């Protein structure tokens, strides 16, 4: 590839009538990495993917994918990308095999090559048995697998997955994650949108949080967590009667007023000292002879990060994404 970035976008704006779906998005995705675009429904994730996959034109700004301009070199872009849209888009009247062969042919393969490729993908995605049945009879998980296989027919350089695990069971989800790991291991760049914070953390080298068409935070999971507030030390005591004493000790060590949860018998406080705090706490509680159930240093969850950044996790007042 002619550039170190598989995706480069600057100032992308897209309006639908009076609503602004994207309000100026900049994005750089280094080749061979995974970027997760995280945001609630209606944040603009799908609109962004549609622009980068040449399905719609941005009103302002520009973008290149695999080194080609999405507006002026659409076909060059389309030759190098794979797209799994939000709803599985395999053809319900065709069999799994027919779907893959057709896509191979439309990726300009000869029919025999497309057939070989289809057979190979059907095997690897565990769809051999269902290969010659119409996909209308497939289970949700099977359809998802076929959809992913379909995006790989052309061996794309850049793969766009729009909420790929929505509606998958935990096993399907972890399977998909493994596939993405393998693809990235072979140099594929993946742009992934998700509402699942856990998924972004598990897969992505870089996370972009968007809301109302704007990027409100970006960085890896650690960085995002730090931005919201550092580590927290949490001590769970065995006897509820020890809570006041425990609160005093934790306050002494961290220098801040701890949060006490009587039901969980826990005392929690933010700290900037990391593991050192934990060592001090362990020593203090041993000397005070307070029995402890659990003592841990934890980072805020991405859910907490998201809540802090957007003020809400279920922000549905924006229009439906097209």
């Amino acid at each position, binding site marked *: 590839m002619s550039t170190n970035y598989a995706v480069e976008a600057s100032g992308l704006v897209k309006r639908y009538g009076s609503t602004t779906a994207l309000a100026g998005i900049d994005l750089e995705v280094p080749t061979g990495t995974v970027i997760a675009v995280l945001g609630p429904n209606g944040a603009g994730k799908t609109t962004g993917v549609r622009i980068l996959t040449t399905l*719609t034109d941005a009103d302002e700004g520009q973008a290149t994918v695999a080194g080609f301009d999405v507006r002026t070199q659409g076909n060059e872009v389309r030759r190098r990308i794979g797209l799994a849209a939000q709803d599985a888009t395999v053809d319900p*009247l065709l069999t799994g095999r027919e779907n893959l062969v057709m896509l191979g042919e439309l990726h300009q393969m000869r029919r025999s090559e497309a057939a070989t490729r289809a057979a190979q993908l059907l095997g690897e995605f*565990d769809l051999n048995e269902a290969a010659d049945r119409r996909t209308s009879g497939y289970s949700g998980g099977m359809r998802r697998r076929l959809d992913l296989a379909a995006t790989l027919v052309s061996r794309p350089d850049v793969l766009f997955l729009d909420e790929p695990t929505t509606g998958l069971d935990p096993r399907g989800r972890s399977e998909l994650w493994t596939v993405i790991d393998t693809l990235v291991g072979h*140099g594929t760049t993946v742009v992934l949108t998700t509402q699942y914070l856990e998924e972004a953390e598990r897969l992505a080298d870089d996370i972009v949080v968007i809301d109302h068409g704007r990027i409100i935070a970006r960085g890896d999971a650690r960085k995002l967590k730090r931005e919201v507030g550092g580590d927290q030390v949490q001590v769970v005591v065995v006897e509820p009667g020890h809570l006041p004493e425990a609160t005093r000790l934790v306050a002494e060590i961290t220098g801040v007023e701890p949060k006490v949860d009587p039901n969980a018998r826990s005392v929690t406080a933010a700290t900037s000292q990391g593991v050192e705090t934990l060592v001090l706490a362990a020593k203090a509680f041993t000397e005070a002879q307070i029995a402890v159930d659990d003592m841990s240093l934890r980072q805020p969850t991405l859910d907490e990060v998201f809540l802090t950044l957007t003020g809400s996790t279920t922000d549905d007042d924006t229009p439906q994404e097209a």
Partner: protein
Amino acid sequence: MAAITLENETIAHDGPRPARGMFHDTWVVARRGLVHMKRQPEALADATIQPIMFVLLFAYVFGGAISVPAGGNYREFLMGGIFAQTIVFTAFGVAMSLAYDRKNQAVDRFRALPIARGAVLGGHAVANLIKAVLPIVLMSLCGLLIGWRIRDGLVSALLGYLLLFAFAFAMIWVGILLGSLVATPEAVQGIGFAVIFPITFMASTFVPTETMPGFLKTIAEWNPVTTLSNAARELFGNPSTVAGPDAPWSIAHPIEYSIIWTIAIVAVCAPLAVRTYQRSVAK
């Protein structure tokens, strides 16, 4: 159940392939359209059972009460009309397949592929032209069984079939326009029954225009479905409408008038349909 296992060979990037051209891409999409037809019994019934049913209904149920002013056998008169009606309904099939594609998100899948411009519409058009052959063949056979004959020689009859398919080609653009304007297959069906169906009846399709009341008669005489029916009758050597000295030009020259309509529909609808389609998919 085994998990997904990707082999190195599956993933290895080997670069995009050279484009194989508009015809290749169009044919791949057309083949898909033909498989769709085969697997949608209701769509296939529209193209097979329905026209045959019309032939039998009008030949045996209504036919006895309808007389042909020009003289001759009503069943022979009927066939030209049924051919024309079936050809006009081609628009329906195209509009339905476009609406289904939109409903199933197939449109976006195609648009994210490196295919030639126009291959998707072209594929639909080719598939529906091929689809138009089936009912015409079936009805010709059915007509032969009930006494319809080609009476004006093979060359003339071939011209008749050619004119019908040319009109089918024109109707495909009407279908693309319709399919791009409305959102759902149900809406296509609604418009089809509210608009296209009556148009095919306000014509000489099943009954001669001579007996219609004045206002309706004028509409029917200028309705291209009338002239297409009459042109087919003329080219197959079947009884048709008698063009009296005061008959309008359309009735006196059904073949020419049908050709003009075919060209006009293509000239107006094709560019409009392509633009409307492109706007409807690039949201």
